[in-house]
C-alpha cells in the first residue's frame, strides 16, 4: 500500500505540523500532541477535551473550535493517546469551570482517560467524563468490552460543545452529552480493509465481491461477511440495524459518514438510499450530514448514525460551530 508519508513513525507529528500551518486559529503543540482553541481557556466556560487514536480525521482535532471541542489529544494511529496529553489538554482549557472528557468506549481510551482524570484531579481540575458507545454492531454485555464509540461521537461533541459555549455548567454539559450518546446509534460497512502506516498492508483480507458488515473504525473486521450488495440494499441493512436498537419516537439527526476512501459522489447516493429507507420506516429526519467525518484512514465504506433529538438538542445542533471539520453559523 503506497502512502503519502515520510516514515510511519512520524505520521502523527507530520500531520500536526500540517494542522499548525493550515489553522492559525488553533494552538497546535506538536511535541506534546495537543490541539487547543487559541482562545482557551474561555472564561467561565466548561472545557471539552476529547481524543483517541489518529486515523479518524477530522475527528477529533478537526472538531476543535468555537461551539465544539476546546482541545483534542491525537494518539498514534489507531492507538489511544496517553494520559500526559489529556492532563496537559485539561490544564490548557480549564477556566475553573471544570473539564469534560469525551471518551470513545475502547479499552485503551477508557484506561488512559481514567488515569488522566485521576492525575488532573490531583492538579485541582474538576473532571467529568462521558463514554460514547453507539455502535450497534457490537453486542453489549457486562462481560465484554461493550459497544464501540463511532459516529455518535460527532453528535456528542457538537451538541455538548454548543451547550458549553452557552455557558452551561459542567454537570449539565455532562448530562446533555450522556443524553446525546444514549440517543445515538451507528452501524458501518466496509468495502475494503484499511492499511495502517505501521503495517503497510490491509489489516484483513476482503475478497472482491464481498463486503463486511458491522465494521469498526480501527480496521477491526466486522461480525459478518456478505456478497456485495447495491447501495440500496446496504442502506436497508444499515438503517435497519440502527433502528432495531434505537426505535426512535422523535425526529432524528442523520450522519451518513464515509470511512475515508469512498467518493463523495457515492456517499451522497448512499444518503439518498438511507433516506428512502428511513421514510419507508416512518422515521422523520430533521437534519442530514453527509461526508467523511469519522474515518478509518483509507477504508472504503460508510456508516449511518442516527441521533434522536428533541427541540433543545436540535437547537444545540443548529447552534454556530467554527472548526476545521464542521462549520456553520459562525
Amino acid at each position, binding site marked *: 500500500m503506497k502512502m503519502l508519508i515520510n516514515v510511519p513513525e512520524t505520521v502523527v507529528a507530520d500531520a500536526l505540523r500540517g494542522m499548525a500551518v493550515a489553522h492559525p486559529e488553533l494552538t497546535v503543540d506538536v511535541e506534546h500532541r495537543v490541539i487547543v482553541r487559541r482562545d482557551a481557556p474561555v472564561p467561565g466556560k466548561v472545557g471539552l477535551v476529547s481524543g483517541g487514536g489518529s486515523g479518524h480525521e477530522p475527528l477529533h482535532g478537526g472538531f476543535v473550535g468555537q461551539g465544539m471541542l476546546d482541545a483534542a489529544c491525537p494518539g*498514534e*494511529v489507531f492507538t*489511544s493517546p*496517553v494520559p500526559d496529553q489529556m492532563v496537559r489538554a485539561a490544564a490548557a482549557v480549564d477556566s475553573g469551570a471544570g473539564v469534560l472528557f469525551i471518551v470513545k468506549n475502547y479499552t*485503551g481510551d477508557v484506561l*488512559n482517560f*481514567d488515569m488522566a482524570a485521576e492525575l488532573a484531579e490531583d492538579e485541582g481540575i474538576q473532571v467529568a467524563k462521558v463514554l460514547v458507545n453507539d455502535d450497534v454492531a457490537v453486542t453489549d454485555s457486562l462481560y465484554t468490552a461493550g459497544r464501540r464509540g463511532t459516529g455518535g461521537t460527532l453528535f456528542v461533541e457538537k451538541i455538548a460543545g454548543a451547550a458549553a459555549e452557552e455557558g452551561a455548567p459542567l454537570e449539565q454539559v455532562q448530562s446533555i452529552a450522556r443524553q446525546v450518546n444514549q440517543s445515538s446509534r451507528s452501524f458501518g460497512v466496509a468495502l475494503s480493509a484499511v492499511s*495502517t502506516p505501521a503495517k503497510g498492508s490491509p489489516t484483513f483480507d476482503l475478497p472482491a465481491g464481498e463486503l463486511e458488515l458491522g465494521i469498526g473504525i480501527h*480496521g477491526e*473486521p466486522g461480525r459478518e461477511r456478505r456478497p456485495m450488495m447495491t447501495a440500496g440494499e446496504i442502506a436497508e441493512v444499515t438503517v435497519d440495524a440502527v433502528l432495531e436498537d434505537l426505535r426512535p419516537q422523535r425526529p432524528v439527526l442523520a450522519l451518513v459518514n464515509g470511512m475515508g476512501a469512498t467518493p463523495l459522489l457515492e456517499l451522497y447516493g448512499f444518503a439518498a438510499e438511507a433516506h428512502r429507507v428511513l421514510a419507508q420506516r416512518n422515521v422523520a429526519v430533521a437534519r442530514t450530514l453527509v461526508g467523511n467525518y469519522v474515518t478509518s484512514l483509507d477504508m472504503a465504506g460508510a456508516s449511518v448514525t442516527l441521533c434522536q433529538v428533541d427541540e433543545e438538542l436540535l437547537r444545540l445542533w443548529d447552534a454556530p460551530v467554527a472548526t476545521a471539520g464542521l462549520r456553520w453559523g459562525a
Partner: protein
Amino acid sequence: MSEEPSPGPVVDAAFFRRWLVAAAAVIDREADQLTELDSPIGDADHGANMRRGFTAARGAIEKEPPETPGDVLAQTGRHLISTVGGASGPLYGTLLRKAGKALGDSAQVTPEQLRDALKAGVDGVAQLGGAAPGDKTMLDALVPAVEALSFALDKGAGLIDALAAARIAAQEGALATVPLQARKGRASYLGERSIGHQDPGATSSALLLGVLADTAEQSAAGGTG
C-alpha cells in the same frame, strides 16, 4: 566459570536494568510479529505500541538509572504509561508500577519478593482491565506464569528454575489463547470470529517473562553485576 552449584542470581537494580535492555531488544525484534497477530483480531498496532514504549523506557532508564529494583520497575511502568497509549500502555504500565511499588526500597530482591511483586502487578492488571483468565488477554499468559513461579518456589526450586517454569507456563498460556473467544479488548468485537487466533498481548507477556528467565540465567552464569 565454576562447577559449584549456581548461587542464584543477584536480583538488584542492575538486574532489572539488564532485563529492560534485553526486553526492549526482543520486543524490537518481534514487533512486526506482534503487529501481525494484532491484525486479524485487533488493529495492527501492538508491536508498534510495545516497541515505542520499551524503546522510550530503556532510553530514559539508561539516562538516569534508578537505584532500587522497585524504582526500575515503577519508573519503567510510568514511561510505558506516558508513551504507549492503547490498552497495553496502561495495563503493562500498571503491571510494572504495582510490581515496583510492592518491592519497596530494598536494594536486593528475594525470589519470594519477586513472586509477590509480580503477583501484585498481575492483580493490578486484572483490576484495571476487568478481565479474567480465559478472556483471551495478556492475563492468559501472566496468571499461569505467576502460578507456576509460586508453585516452583513452594516446591523448593531456585529462582532460575522457577522463572524457567514461569516462562513455559506463559508460553503455553499464550498458545492456549488460540481456541478462545475474546471477551475483552478489541478482539471481543469479533465475537466468534476471534476464535483461532493467538492473542497479541498474551504473546508479548510470554516474551517479557522469557526475557526475565533469560536475565536470571545469564546473571547467575556470567555473574555480571
